[in-house]
């Protein structure tokens, strides 16, 4: 829990810089430009509903984290957005183009790493990328070699570029997949579980690359089942659960959805609560200190008050709901809603069985 908080705070400063679209992002009434837009998406595979009535927006310039447990429909959503799969119902627009029909307009500007890296084991990393580069519409034939070299450099694979792909570690394979998505300057980069198989250093690299993309104005869609990863890299979040969207919006909005509070770590908790109450600031004891309600006051005022009363302060931090909490709340609410539907079935079953 505390680890998540640290991540969240660390990421706050990053998120602060982005912001052009962070206010009004959501499926309803988004006015800013969207690089991808889905309405009423439904996909049924042989009778199994993978995704149902999903509305989703990817605002331009955003890093959208698509979050959900395994099997929640993340990859199906991505495949539909990229036109690899035709939705059973609903519409997809990618860079303003209807998909999958206008794929040859939109996809040249989209880099993607979907369902893990796909390469030929008997070719080296460089040869594999050259093969990918040959098919890239926006790469001039004379520029393919340089583009491949630059992409390899960017993901830190230059040293292993001429080794056979067969001998690559999982992390190196993942990096090569990432290099394939970055061969051409893109408008949108879609990464499906990009940190799978990467060590902590590799994960940091991926975060750095996502950060660079965002700074150069490229929108990014990252899917992940790792909450900390999404919290650390994204400006926006879509939470999928059992094929439907249970929440979407800017990360800040999602995290701040509870009432604001300040957590003060102090050995003099009792004194602190007393002092704050005398100043009409609601506060109560919390493990290791006090929790101060910030609805009517500012953190600086709270700290000033405490100092004035001689309360020793070890640490004061804004309480943030971790994404883990938000996620648990969202998915559990979903499960609770479904429970009543299940029960009548059981009743019927019991009636029928004798």
């Amino acid at each position, binding site marked *: 829990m505390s680890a998540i908080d640290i991540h969240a705070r660390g990421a706050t400063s990053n998120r602060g810089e982005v912001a052009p679209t962070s206010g009004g992002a959501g499926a309803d009434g988004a006015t800013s430009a*969207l690089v991808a837009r889905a309405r009423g998406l439904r996909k049924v595979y042989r009778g199994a509903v993978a995704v149902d009535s999903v509305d989703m927006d990817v605002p331009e310039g955003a890093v959208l984290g698509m979050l959900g447990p395994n099997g929640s429909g993340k990859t199906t959503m991505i*495949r539909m957005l*990229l036109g*690899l799969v035709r939705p059973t119902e609903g519409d997809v627009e990618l860079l303003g*183009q209807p998909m999958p029909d206008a794929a*040859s307009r939109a996809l*040249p500007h989209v880099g993607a790493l979907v*369902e893990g890296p796909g390469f030929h084991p008997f070719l080296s990393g460089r040869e594999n990328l050259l093969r990918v580069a040959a*098919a890239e*519409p926006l790469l001039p034939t004379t520029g393919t070699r340089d583009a491949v070299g630059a992409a390899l450099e960017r993901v830190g694979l230059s040293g292993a570029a001429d080794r056979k792909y067969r001998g690559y570690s999982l992390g190196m394979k993942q990096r090569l997949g990432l290099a394939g998505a970055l061969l051409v300057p893109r408008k949108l980069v879609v990464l499906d579980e990009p940190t799978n198989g990467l060590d902590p250093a590799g994960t940091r690299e991926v975060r750095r690359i996502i950060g660079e993309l965002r700074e150069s104005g490229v929108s990014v869609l990252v899917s992940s089942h790792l909450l900390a990863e999404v919290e650390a890299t994204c400006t926006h979040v879509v939470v999928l659960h059992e094929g439907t969207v249970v929440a979407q919006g800017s990360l800040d909005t999602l995290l701040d959805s509870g009432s604001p509070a300040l957590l003060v770590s102090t050995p003099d908790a009792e004194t602190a609560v007393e002092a704050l109450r005398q100043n009409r600031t609601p506060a109560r004891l919390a493990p290791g200190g006090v929790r101060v309600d910030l609805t009517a006051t500012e953190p600086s005022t709270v700290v000033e008050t405490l100092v004035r009363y001689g309360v020793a302060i070890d640490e004061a931090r804004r309480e943030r709901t971790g994404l883990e909490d938000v996620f648990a709340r969202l998915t559990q609410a979903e499960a609770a809603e479904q429970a009543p539907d299940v029960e009548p079935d059981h009743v019927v079953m019991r009636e029928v069985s004798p």
Partner: protein
Amino acid sequence: MTTVDTLAAGWQPTRAAAPFTRLVWSELRWIFRRPRTLVVLGVLGAIPVIIGLSVHLSGSTDGGPPNGEAPLFVTFASSALALPVGTLSVTLMFLLPLTVAMVGADAIAGEQSHGTLRGWLLAPVTRGRLLTVKALGVAVAALVAVTLMTSTGVVTGFVLGGTDGLFTLSGTSLTVVEALGRIGITISWVAVQLFAVGAVALAISTFTEHPMVVVAGILAGDILFGVLLMLSAVDWLHPFLLTVSWSALPDVLRDPIPTGTLTEGALRAGCYMLIGLSIAYARLTAKDG
């Protein structure tokens, strides 16, 4: 990475596609870089040499033929005309279709199994273009296999039998130029038959992500056709079987060439190509990527 204009500024992506020739070159480089392809081509190229040498040596070591058949066969095996044609008609039964099936299997099912087919679709390369590139790749591989085998056969024949033994099955003899013309006809005809096999392999390839299924399918079809051709009860079916005219290949060694069966065979192969590629196209465009 440079910043691109924003969507908000009314930016509209235009249709874009990689140059077709670049795709074809990339595909050919991929096919001929694959160790498996090189091994198979090496074996195919060696077969005429092995047949020629072994027959030639076995015929000449004991100084004379033990019976009447040997000299003819030795002459046959040492002829720059008969050796390549003979080797092709032997290998056309299994080895050549197998080679083409292997390339066709890797072309789509193999790419699917490595997750690389998605790369083409995401680039994007339209599915029609993808199939064209793949079909060209298989065709070139088939042509290279046949040409290579014929070339080593011709060279072996010239080395062992010189330029004199260019007899036809009808007993006439041909000049070197005439013989090379016959060789050219043989290469084209066998290649067309293999294109048909390749088209069917590509069609099967779009239905599976296991290359083995494609190779097994082609092999099973080949054997099944062979069995059906032996059953006179189903002789109404024989005109529909691709392999029915394959035994007519030695016709190119007759003088003049009886063109009936060979022409019919080429047309039949054309039908197989059309059907195979149509199925592959229909399946590929409907398939989830």
